């Protein structure tokens, strides 16, 4: 354990023990830019209020700070909370999850080249979440399985299809995807 008063753990301790606003603001400023973009990627191209989700994430984080065991990084823990809040918001908005096959049809229908970020944001929820967690934020399939309540094998297969769908939207492997989907 480091004694650096500005590290996440020391600041979190100040928030927990003293309700230290300054310490919280340091944590907030340090992690929220990453958190905000993560949430935006998880909710995809749906019209959710990212700021509301980020705020709710921080509230839940501070509320449960006492139970955090520091067995993972503060960042990973925050992302896990943000993921839960985002998924809850997606369910609450009663968005009908797209069936896996929709990725294929989306690939055919929108084969024009779009940029990578948009291709990811347009993925079905399950695919997008796994791809974002694995390919952008570096979580393992085991971690993703724990976070999403699915088997690591399911995470792998969803990642596989997510990548295919992204390729299809980017146009680079359109024919391959078309072949796989038929």
């Amino acid at each position, binding site marked *: 354990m480091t*004694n650096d*008063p500005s590290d996440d753990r020391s600041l979190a301790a*100040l*928030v927990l023990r*003293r*309700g*230290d*606003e*300054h*310490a*919280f*603001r340091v944590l*907030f*400023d340090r992690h*929220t*830019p*990453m958190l*905000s*973009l993560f949430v*935006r990627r998880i909710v995809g191209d749906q019209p959710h209020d990212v*700021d509301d989700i*980020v*705020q709710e994430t*921080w*509230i839940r984080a*501070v*509320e449960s700070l006492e139970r955090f065991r520091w067995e993972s990084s503060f960042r990973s823990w925050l992302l896990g909370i943000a993921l839960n809040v985002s998924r809850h918001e997606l369910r609450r908005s009663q968005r009908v999850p797209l069936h896996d096959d929709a990725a294929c049809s989306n690939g055919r229908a929108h084969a024009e080249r779009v940029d*990578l*970020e948009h291709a990811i944001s347009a993925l079905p929820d399950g695919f997008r979440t796994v791809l974002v967690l694995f*390919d*952008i934020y570096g979580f393992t399939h085991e971690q993703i399985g724990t976070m999403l309540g699915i088997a690591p094998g399911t995470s*792998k*297969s969803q*990642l*596989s299809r997510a*990548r*295919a769908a992204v*390729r299809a939207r980017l146009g*680079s492997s359109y024919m*391959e995807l078309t072949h796989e989907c038929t």
Partner: protein
Amino acid sequence: MNAHDEWSKDERAALRALPRGEPVTRTLADSTVAALHARGLLRRRTPSRALWPLAAAAALALFLGGYAFGQMRGIRAGHELAIDAMTAVPGADAARLAVVVQRTGTAYLRALDVLARNGSDGAQQAQEAALVITEAALREVTAFAPDTLTRARLARRLQSATPPSIWY
């Protein structure tokens, strides 16, 4: 997953090039802080009762620095006034005494400003006095609270030679 599923070198590079963060508005920070205050999870930034002794100690150090400087220059009126102010509050608790000491500190800072404006010699002496004050405050805080953010901040401020701004 099979080899087909793996990203190509270019695709991996494109993924790595994606931004990892985005600008966040001050409004979001403030509204989040307000929400945490409303739930009792954060406390206001005003010094808590527990910090009063620390504030008093630092203010006292400020005063002592001024006293030492005054002694050096043969000036006694300032510290005598401060002692009068301290003893004129019978039965006062630490919080009230801390206010008196802080006011003394403010008076000292004003005196420092007057000194600094008194020609080039005054500015030089004011700098020496300010250094004495800040070092004295750091020593006091180190003695009272060696492992705190307050001590670390004070040390950093002294190191960067910026005037202390923790008082008012």
